């Protein structure tokens, strides 16, 4: 049975056809590759395919089954979609909506200022929070017209990458 892997917007189906130790015959969508694949616990992969040498490094992300892959020239975000994730996806289909109505920190940092309070009405583009990291301050603005629903952090607190900071409610 094949597994689906999402790379940026592409969803590819992967399946191993044959295998002998580190020599694999593997199908990605409709292409078949014979690869000599070695990897280690640090997520470092060395893949030889028709003599070409590929070096890939996979770093697991905080969400399970999410990885960032580093090739020589680029980095990619990937997600493995197995039966379990498909089930969770169907159950929490609404989560997508939420993330569009919220502000998430793209990096770890410290909250410098939150010029709004719960219940405030805000316009798209209004600054809702200022985060400082590495001596640089960044302002995050409201993605929509709406009302502040929840503020998850306080001024002075430190935040992790991808943490939801503020949720905004659409005014209907």
């Amino acid at each position, binding site marked *: 049975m094949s597994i689906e892997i999402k790379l940026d917007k592409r969803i590819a189906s*992967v399946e191993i056809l044959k295998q002998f130790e580190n020599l694999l015959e593997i199908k990605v969508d409709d292409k078949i590759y014979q690869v000599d694949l070695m990897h280690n616990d640090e997520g470092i992969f060395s893949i030889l395919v028709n003599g070409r040498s590929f070096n890939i490094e996979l770093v697991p992300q905080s969400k399970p089954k999410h990885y960032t892959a580093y090739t020589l020239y680029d980095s990619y975000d*990937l997600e493995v979609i197995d039966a379990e994730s498909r089930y969770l996806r169907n159950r929490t289909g609404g989560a997508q909506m939420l993330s569009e109505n919220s502000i998430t920190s793209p990096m770890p940092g*410290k909250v410098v200022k939150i010029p709004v309070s719960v219940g405030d009405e805000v316009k798209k583009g209004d600054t809702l929070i200022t985060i400082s990291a*590495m001596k640089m301050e960044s302002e995050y603005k409201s993605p929509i017209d709406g009302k502040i629903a929840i503020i998850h952090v306080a001024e002075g607190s*430190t935040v992790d990458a991808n943490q939801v900071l503020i949720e905004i409610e659409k005014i209907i």
Partner: protein
Amino acid sequence: MKKIIKILIANRGEIAVRIMRTCREMGISTVAVFSDADRTSMHVRYADEAYHIGASPSSESYLNADKIIEVAKKCNADAIHPGYGFLSENAAFSRKCDENGIIFIGPKPEVIEQMGDKISARLTMIAAGVPVVPGTTESVKTEKEAIDTIMEIGLPVMVKASAGGGGKGMRLITEEKDITSLVRSARSEAKSSFGNDSVYIEKYISSPHHIEFQVLGDKHGNFLHLFERECSVQRRHQKMIEETPSPLMTPELRKKMGEYAVEAARAVNYTGAGTIEFLVDNDLNFYFLEMNTRLQVEHPITERVTGIDLVKQQILIAEGQPLKFNQEQLKQTGHAIECRIYAEDTDNNFMPNPGKIYNITQPLGLGVRTDGYVYEGYEIPIYYDSMISKLIVWAENRSEAIERMKRALYEYKITGVKTSIKFLERIMDTPDFRNGNYDTNFIEKNKEQLLLASKCTENCEDMVIIATYIEYLDQLNIAQTSKEMYPAKNRWKKYTYQKNFERL
């Protein structure tokens, strides 16, 4: 003349480690100081001794002059090296060192004050006959005054923190409607970075070259320069790439600017290593911009072409020794380039990207020097600068140096955080950079090419997908069987996957 035997390094990151390296070569003991966030930082592990000085924000640790001096006295350090940033251009700190009988490795407090305040520096240079950029000759203390002055000089102008450096508290104003908001943010950033919200205002010279001269002065009245560094490749007013010699330079211009740089140092009876920064326009007119009374981030390229260890010279000068070479003995040999590796997202307006370093592969081999401080498993703190290492290459000539830099950047792998490495590699490929035809507007001008991600062939995308698949199978396996207790035994894997495939 006092032989220094123990130095406290009042800094962190790559520069702290770099200074300790020279100390070790000179047989001098090293003392590190560290904040909460830095207990596992490289400089703590590299030093002979290490003392905790406070909480993570620099205002509570690396800027805490009294605490640092207390530690220096407790551990009997003869001298303090301030590195760059933090207290390096703080006259009060230099003075406190003096008062406590500790050698401050840098110029005298009066000189720091005189050159550190951009206004008095400008006045000093005008008096010494060095050309300066048109602008205010007095510090501007209120918002209103700033706005009035700007209207007087006329747009475009640069607003800069009087006490500043490194692009902090600096704003370019080109449109009238932005004056108020930009003056405010400059002043607020100046306040939070340097504890002083005074600014000054200069006419903005569009697309100039940023060229600086390294100077040394000893306590015996000897002054000399170690040639120029071209620092025009900047983003957000912070340097990204420096090189020496400058592609713009002619032997005549070098001689003339070098003489002015030495005059500038002599005018304040400068002691130690310092840098005279100039703006140079396309007609090769040059203007004094500011003097940095400390070691510069980009000092290694000067070390590489002259063979002089600048930190060693700083220490010898601080001991009171006279310079052992003169201007005529100094030569620029070959070509050196430095790339600054920042933990940042170059695709997203160079947003800092702190986080945990996963793996590092250092570039090695002929003509390559790396000055860094991060290591595998290290978490880059959110409190300090985003520069994590400097890559310096040397070659016989500029075009070979560019090829070597490309090779070194290609080899340099840092995963876990986003870095500027790929962006720097693309800079090495732009015709403007390769032809040496660039000014401070370079990144803006070449934005399109620089932000164009190199295309990965479909093949390569598929390999990434395969790797992810195998990693996923492997993780499944780990989750079910027990992991080896001794990681050393089990790195590269060559076992059968069949068991898993059957389950799928």
